[in-house]
Each structure stands twice: as C-alpha cells, then as structure tokens.
C-alpha cells in the first residue's frame, strides 16, 4: 500500500513539472534566452568621444544588461543597447588648470540592429567635471545608476 502511495506521488510530481520544463525552449537557434540577448554598442556618431569614455559607457551598459541576465557578445544577432548623448552644456573654466564640465542626458535605447526599430528607452541626466575631456565624461558616466528603473 505504502509503495503504491509513494509511486502515485512521484507520478503526480512528474506530471506537474513536465509541461513546465517543456515550456522553456532550448532548441539551438530558437533558444528563448539567446533570442532576447542584448549586445551593448557604441554608435559611429559617438566614436569621436575619448576612447576611455567610450569604454566606460560600454562597461556601464554591460553592467545594466548583465544585471538583467540578458548579456550577449558584441556581435550578437539581433537586439542591441545603444546610447545617445544629448549634451545640454559643456564648458571649460578659465582656471588653472582648466576644468571641463558636461551636463548631459544619456538615453539608452534597446533596438533592432538591422531595422533600427527602437523597442524601449531609458534616460538619465548626468553631470561631470574633470581636468581632461575624458575625465569629465567618466565623472558623468559614473553617475549612471545601473539599478535605476526606467523613466
């Protein structure tokens, strides 16, 4: 009787979990997880920004994507996260040494690499100052809160 009851329980558990497991598609190219993987990219328009600053922004985007478990290699097939900088003001103080300041809005877009369709955006206003252009950018990008929710 006990064996029969134990067998019935095992059967019940298996019948409940099997459809759940089968719901997750892990079949090669149609794998759900890799289909929504997002690759951070820096657009060509921003390539004139100091290299160190580009790397810093790329790193921040990678952290954001990684936190949500959607990281992909930079040459991932479909979805990309691409930044857009709207510089509200940038000044250089006439001091010794001169200090570069940036006040800008960083917009992060989730887009289709091929069609350019944008599916989601998030933005944050950041301010940065530094003795060089790169340090000022880095100081500003450092303010990007990777934990913040979309606004």
């Amino acid at each position, binding site marked *: 009787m006990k064996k029969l009851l134990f067998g019935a329980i095992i059967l019940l558990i298996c019948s409940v979990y099997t459809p759940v497991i089968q719901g997750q598609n892990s079949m090669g190219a149609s794998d759900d997880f890799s289909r929504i993987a997002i690759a951070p990219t820096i657009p060509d328009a921003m390539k004139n920004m100091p290299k160190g600053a580009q790397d810093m922004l790329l790193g921040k985007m990678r952290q954001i994507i990684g936190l949500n478990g959607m990281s992909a290699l930079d040459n991932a097939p479909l979805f990309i996260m691409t930044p857009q900088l709207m510089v509200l003001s940038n000044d250089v103080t006439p001091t010794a*040494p*001169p200090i570069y300041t940036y006040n800008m809005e960083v917009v992060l877009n989730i887009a289709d690499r091929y069609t350019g369709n944008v599916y989601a955006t998030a933005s944050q206003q950041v301010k940065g100052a530094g003795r060089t252009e790169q340090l000022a950018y880095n100081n500003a990008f450092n303010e990007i809160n990777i934990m913040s929710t979309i606004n």
Partner: protein
Amino acid sequence: MNRIIFILVLCLTTLVSWGQAKKPIIMIVPSDIFCVSHGYTTTVNANGKDEVMPDYKKAMQGSDELRMVITKMGAIMSERGFPLKDLEQTLKSIDTQSAEISMMTSKSSSAAIKETPIDVLKRTAKADIIMDIDFNVKRQGPNNYITFVLKGLDAYTNKQVAAATGTGKPSSAASADLLLEEAVLSHMDAFNGQLTTFFNDMFTNGREVTIALRVWDNAGVDFEQSFDYKGTNDQLSFHIENWFTENTVNGRFSTIDATGTMMKFEQVRIPMMFNLNGRDVAMDTRRYINNLSKFLSGPPFNLDNKIYQRGLGEAWLIIGEK
C-alpha cells in the same frame, strides 16, 4: 613727542589687527596676452566653439624669464609682508591631490572618497588677489629694453586694486634677465604702496565681497513672493535688501541684479571681525552669509537654503533646500 608716541601706538594697533584678520591670498599669474604671444596655449572646445586658453603649466615649464620675474617679485613681496602663493607649486599640488583622492580607499570596506562634480570643479589654483603680469623684451637699434604691465586684480569684485606699467632703461650690454629684474624692481614699491592702500581701506571700511542669491528649480518660492515681516508686507527681495542695509558696514552694498530667480550684490562691505563667545574672530563671506541663511530659515520666511562658497570674497545662497 606725544605725536610720535601716538603714531607708534597706531601703527602697532594696525599690525596687531592685521595679524588677526584673514589675509587675502596673492598669486602671480602670467597674463593671457603673454601666454598667447609666447605660444603657451591650449585650444579647447566649449559648447561647440573652439577657444584658445592659456596653459600656465606650459608657460612655467617653458619660460626662464617668467620664472625669474615670479621669483624676484615673490622675494620682494615677502619682504614687504605679502607672501605669495606659487602658481607652479600649486598646480603640482593639485595634480598630486587628484591622484591621492582617486587612490584613497577606506580600510574596512574599501569605500572611495565621495566627490561631486562641484568638488572636482573646485580643485583649481585659487587666489584672492591675482597679480597679472605681462612683459616683453624689445630691441631698439643695438639696445634691448623691457616693457611690462603688472595688474593687481581682486578675484571676486574684479576690481583693479593696484597697477604698475613701465619701460626699462635701454642697454646694449645688460642681458634680458638683468633688464627685467631692474624694470620690475623699480616699480614694485609703487605697486606695493597701492596694495597697502587697498588693504587699509578694507580694514577701515570692511572687506568688499560679492554675494549672489539663487533658487533651486523645485523651490516653490521666488524673490517676488510677498512676506509679512515685522508688520511690513513686501516682496522677499526687498526684505533681503533691508537685511543687507542693517548688516553691512555703514549700510554699503550695491544691488547689481534682482529678478524673480536671482539677486546679485556687489561691493558688500562686511566687517573684518565678529564676536564669538567673547573672542574677536576673523569674518569671511561664508560666516557672513550664514547670518543671512539663518534670517531666511526663521519665521516668517522658513526657507531652507544652501550656502555655497566661491572663495574668501564670494558666496552664494541657494534657496529651496540644502
């Protein structure tokens, strides 16, 4: 005899008082025209516009004559009781400080030093009096001669408080360094005399400072809002002006600008000293504006505010929150 004793006592009193008051920081800085004409510049892009700016580090590293003039003037000023802050050393110190800040971490949690963009912006060479110098070695036939312009500028009021310009004696034998030294030496006493007059005026009539008031964009109040204070209903800006009238030396100040969102006061004469627990303590702009901050924090205004100091002679009060 009595007159001599009186003068001696007066001199002694002035010296003692000067010893207590906060002395302005003086720094020699090569003028823009000197840096541009000698190629000590850097081009920067600000708001989409290329700007040529003086590169002081390059000037200090590249011009022997400039170093010689600064050293010589520094020695003379020290002898006269005005020790100078050295620009070259200050720039080095700023570089070292930046490196130290970025390397510093706490022992237990490896926390870094918190630094806002404003803190970075503040890490520059600062002086209350800037001695702006420009000189040229010129030739006339076989002779060399020197022309130079020296201006003493108050960094906060932007006023020229002392000046010396001159042309040195032409000579075919003396080197440029020697001519420069001679030209500077012959005019330094007159320059120092003007500087002393400026400091004495400051001591008699109060330090002249600049004060600006602004509002945060979420403040919900501006300087045109009316308040009832001691039975007078008026706009906030007029209550603030009344406060300045009552709290400046001989009520001396000028309202340069007043809009709904900002007010700027120049030539504000603040006392050199104030009393703290029975002791005379030197007053600076931050201490002074703290009194205005308390005034606005209290009833009927109840306005939270932030004090922002730009140096010994300029401070801002930003209304709305800390």
